[in-house]
């Protein structure tokens, strides 16, 4: 029984994906793709922020790295998408491993501001290093993959639905990895670091190494997200990788969804990516509503949407208990 309920969300997810694809509506498919993209970023962030408890506010740096790398591979060197998809996460992880030990000497607010600064530096570079990044004008001409596979199983990556299948496949693979990782000793040690770094170290674990690994996983997965973004939109500019557009958004998707939960990133992303699409308003009003929703969700559900079931059932139980007590008296 328990096993069955554990599979239910997965079936729901697959059904939702199939339903979106079946509509064939370019708009729905694109929105669903963006939802998966943010879920991917949040799911990577979960390792360092959710499990290890480090306030990573610079994910946009790695997201941008992936996107600009993908643009360079595709537009400047005419390499297929798979090259960027393999190289950029490795680059993201490598950079994380190099700067990680430095960044992770700090924690709490210091770490938050240090990572924030990292994101800002990358934003500055994307705006100013015109020769490589195209500056504020950005880069275009990113070509999607063509035919993949053979016969009935082939997909055309150049179409929106083809791109959807590629994104969905990567997203599902990462979700499965995340689900497996949640039960691993690795994540257990990260949780140990979150609750008491010193204690975990005294048990013989080199906590810095684990923290750097978590930081690198977040960086690598964000790079994957960046590569996908570049191929979905086929044009990149500095704007989508700025603090409020990227790092903050990923942070919020995860925190609103539920830190350290498996389905939190998905729930947070569906709400926060879907909401601005439903609201057809003036961009500034939209931002206002977005801020207000954020405020309300954080105050009502500080542990995120993934805890909603638990909160509701706890309330129900409490009121049921109150009723039985009333009957007894």
């Amino acid at each position, binding site marked *: 029984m328990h096993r069955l309920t554990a599979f239910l969300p997965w079936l729901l997810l697959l059904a939702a994906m199939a339903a979106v694809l079946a509509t064939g509506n370019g708009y729905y498919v694109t929105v669903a793709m963006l939802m998966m993209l943010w879920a991917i970023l949040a799911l990577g962030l979960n390792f360092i*922020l959710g499990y290890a408890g480090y*306030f990573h506010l610079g994910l946009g740096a790695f997201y941008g790295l992936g996107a600009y790398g993908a643009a360079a591979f595709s537009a400047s060197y005419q390499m297929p998408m798979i090259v960027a998809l393999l190289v950029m996460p490795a680059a993201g992880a490598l950079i994380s491993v190099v700067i990680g030990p*430095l*960044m992770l*000497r*700090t924690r*709490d*607010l*210091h770490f*938050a*501001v*240090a990572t*924030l*600064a*990292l994101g*800002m*530096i990358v934003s*500055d*570079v994307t*705006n*100013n290093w015109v020769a490589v990044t195209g500056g504020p004008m950005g880069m275009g001409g990113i070509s999607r993959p063509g035919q993949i596979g053979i016969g009935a199983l082939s997909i055309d990556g150049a179409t929106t639905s083809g791109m959807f299948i590629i994104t969905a496949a990567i997203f599902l693979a990462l979700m499965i990895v995340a689900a497996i990782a949640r039960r691993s000793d690795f994540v257990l040690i990260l949780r140990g670091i979150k609750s008491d770094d010193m204690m975990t170290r005294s048990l013989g674990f080199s906590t810095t190494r684990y923290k750097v690994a978590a930081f690198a996983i977040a960086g690598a997965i964000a790079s994957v997200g960046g590569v996908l973004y570049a191929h979905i939109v086929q044009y990149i500019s500095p704007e989508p990788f700025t*603090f*409020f557009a990227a790092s*903050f958004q990923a*942070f*919020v998707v995860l*925190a*609103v969804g539920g*830190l350290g939960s498996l389905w939190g990133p998905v729930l947070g992303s569906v709400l926060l990516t879907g909401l601005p699409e439903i609201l057809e308003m003036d961009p*500034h*009003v939209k*931002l*206002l509503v*977005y*801020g*207000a929703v*954020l*405020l309300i969700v*954080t*105050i009502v559900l*500080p542990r995120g949407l993934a805890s909603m079931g638990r909160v509701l059932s706890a309330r129900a139980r409490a009121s049921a208990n109150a009723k039985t007590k009333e009957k007894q008296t």
Partner: protein
Amino acid sequence: MQDIVNGLAQGTIYSMAGVGLVLIFSVVRVPNFAHGEPLMVAAMLPLTLMTFYGVPLPLALLIGIAAAIAMGVFFSAAVFARLSRYPEVALLIVSLALVVLISSAAVMLWGDSPRQTPGGPDIILDLLGARIPIMWLVIMVTALASTVALDFFISHTSPGRIMRAMALNPFAAQLMGIPVKRYHALAFAIGSGLAGLAGALFSLAFAVQSTMGAALALKAFIVIIFAGMGSIWGAFAGGLLLGLVESFGASYISSGYRDTFGFVFLLAVLLIRPAGLFARKTNA
């Protein structure tokens, strides 16, 4: 010489914002990323008051600062004091959500083009070949004076002592019968008031923008990290240092990367002294 003066002038606004944030952060432990918003409001409001309601300049500046203080009290009483039991990550998001709310409202109200409040004294002094508008000197002297005043307030008056007690241990402070919520609001009021003062004066000498709050709050955080948290004079010096680094970087290396120099410098500081440049054992 001109670079030094430019850096110091720019740095004093970071100093004042940083000093205000140090007070808030050490007394109530809220990662208040919305700290730049009162500064922005105090910088933007006076011009609107002057052009639409004919308010004279000094009064307009005072109203701007009063608005900043009111925002600080609102942050405390309506938002952060109620959320004191929430996890830090929730507070962080709430403060960033406030940034989104306030700055998008400000953009709707004022647009996002840079502007300056006219009417300040425009005498320009000449010192060793550097041009120094007299307004810059006013800003620097005010920053210095307000930091001295705050230092005196914290270390020699009874409310200051109470705030230090709260910084040390809020729970014990409450047990001693301190009305914690009132001092929570007071810390926010003073901190935001200082930010407002900085904003109002700054708008007389430099261009200000309705979207500048977030960047300034970030710089205030960088400043208090330089300072090693909880040291008022550390924050003051840190602000000047950040201004100098940006000014020299911009004129000797590349002006497009102005902000990057500050951030790179921050990362370098964290590498060498993770506890901050001027870290000492003090609280508030």
